[in-house]
């Protein structure tokens, strides 16, 4: 991967590692002493109430947020280390940008570029960041759009798409960078219920293809059926981590049981997860 600048040993295990990560916004502690290890080709589901720190955790991995303590390693290489509120990057700014090309991110509110066509939304990264020619970038974009079943929407503008379609374009946009890891920040939480399925299907498909994924999600079915590892978070802490079945079916902690009871009962009566917006 050194041709893309950020030099990491991507086959080393684990692929992503966080140790003792703290993150605060002013007096609010977003993350407290978080440990996490993600092995290659595995899917990690982050579950927990809104505001429990799932988004913050993802943002520490791609260095959109800087920890106040702890360290983060990606591909075996330490990217940031912090002690007592002072962080030290172990990568220069160009390397941080290159690191992000390897870490695809999908947002709750899609964040498509409204002034660009679907094709250009997806092709822009390969063209501008990876330096591909216009033709190569557009070929890549068409390939990724067909992967999410939206090749026929290449010339549409984002405002002409449904929420589910927007999110699939956003996934294609992330995939066009050929990332090593995909980070999903509540990718289905802003969708109308009938559109959740099409997005979850693509996430499943990616998992089947062996993509390493970390998904903050309220979709318990996805967590149960797709995730290798489930991490339950509350109040900025990792309460419980383990194989999906163990955490979801035999939770060890009262907090986890309480959360699952509430979510699963809600789902059982046909309700839809309220999914308030997270920060």
């Amino acid at each position: 991967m050194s041709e893309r600048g950020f030099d990491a040993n991507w086959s080393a295990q684990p692929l992503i590692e966080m140790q003792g990560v703290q993150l605060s916004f002013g007096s609010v502690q977003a993350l407290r002493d978080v440990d996490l290890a993600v092995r290659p080709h595995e899917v990690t589901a982050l579950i927990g109430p809104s505001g429990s720190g799932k988004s913050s955790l993802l943002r520490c991995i791609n260095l959109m947020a800087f920890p106040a303590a702890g360290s983060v390693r990606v591909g075996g290489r330490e990217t940031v280390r912090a002690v007592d509120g002072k962080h030290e990057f172990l990568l220069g700014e160009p390397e941080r940008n290159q690191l992000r090309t390897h870490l695809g991110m999908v947002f709750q509110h899609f964040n498509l570029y409204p002034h660009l066509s679907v094709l250009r939304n997806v092709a822009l990264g390969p063209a501008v960041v990876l330096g591909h020619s216009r033709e190569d970038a557009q070929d890549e974009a068409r390939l990724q759009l067909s992967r999410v079943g939206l090749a026929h929407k290449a010339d549409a503008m984002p405002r002409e798409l449904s929420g589910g379609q927007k999110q699939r374009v956003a996934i294609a946009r992330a995939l066009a960078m050929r990332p090593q890891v995909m980070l999903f920040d509540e990718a289905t939480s802003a969708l109308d219920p009938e559109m959740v399925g099409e997005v979850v299907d693509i996430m499943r498909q990616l998992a089947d293809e062996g993509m390493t994924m970390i998904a903050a999600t309220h979709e318990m079915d996805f967590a149960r059926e797709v995730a290798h590892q489930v991490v339950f978070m509350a109040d900025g802490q990792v309460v419980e981590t383990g194989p999906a079945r163990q955490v979801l079916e035999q939770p060890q902690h009262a907090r986890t049981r309480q959360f699952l009871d509430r979510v699963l009962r809600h789902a059982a009566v046909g309700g839809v997860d309220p999914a308030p917006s997270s920060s």
Partner: protein
Amino acid sequence: MNAFDWSVIGQYAGYVAAGIPITLLVSAGAVVIGIVLGVPIAILRLRAWAPVRWLLLGYVELFRNTPVLVQVVWFYYVLPVLTGGNLPPVWAGTLAIGLNTSAYIAEAVRGGIVGIASGQGEAARCIGMSYWQSMRWIILPQTSRRMLVPFANTFVVVIKESALVSYIGVLDILHRGDVVQVSTFKPLEAYTLVAVFFLIVITAVTQLMRFMEKRWSPAVD
């Protein structure tokens, strides 16, 4: 009240109207200066070496917190003393109003950038774009579309401010009205002419801007 003397209108309308090109020239020049300086100031105020940011903040505050008329007079009378050069009044007036406009445009554009930057900038940074790449490809293109209406409004404001150059002797619409008033002793007719011509100019510009807004309406969802 004296009867309105239409003969003054007939005699001097052409003379006052001859100030329209100067008024438009000063206004257009000031808007161009305002945009050319204001947009980079906005960008640099968001992310530049700290002393540069402070300097630009000082610039913006200086121009926003002193009267435009004072700025016009200062540039006409004081700048030549400081530089030793001679600045024609049209240039001094255009420059002063232009710099003043740049301070306001810088603040408006900065607001526009900040409004777009949160989600859009994040999406751009997350695929590995540098800050400047995200500006170039994502944030500024969207900002410029959103700025079309505020810029059009700025132009109208600047046309009105341009009347201040009459104070330093530029023969714009207002100054020509002064000349008519002095030579006829008919202020009612003279300044009504001035007001009507400003109204015509500003209405025409507003209509033109509306037409352009429709053609380049922002493609924002």
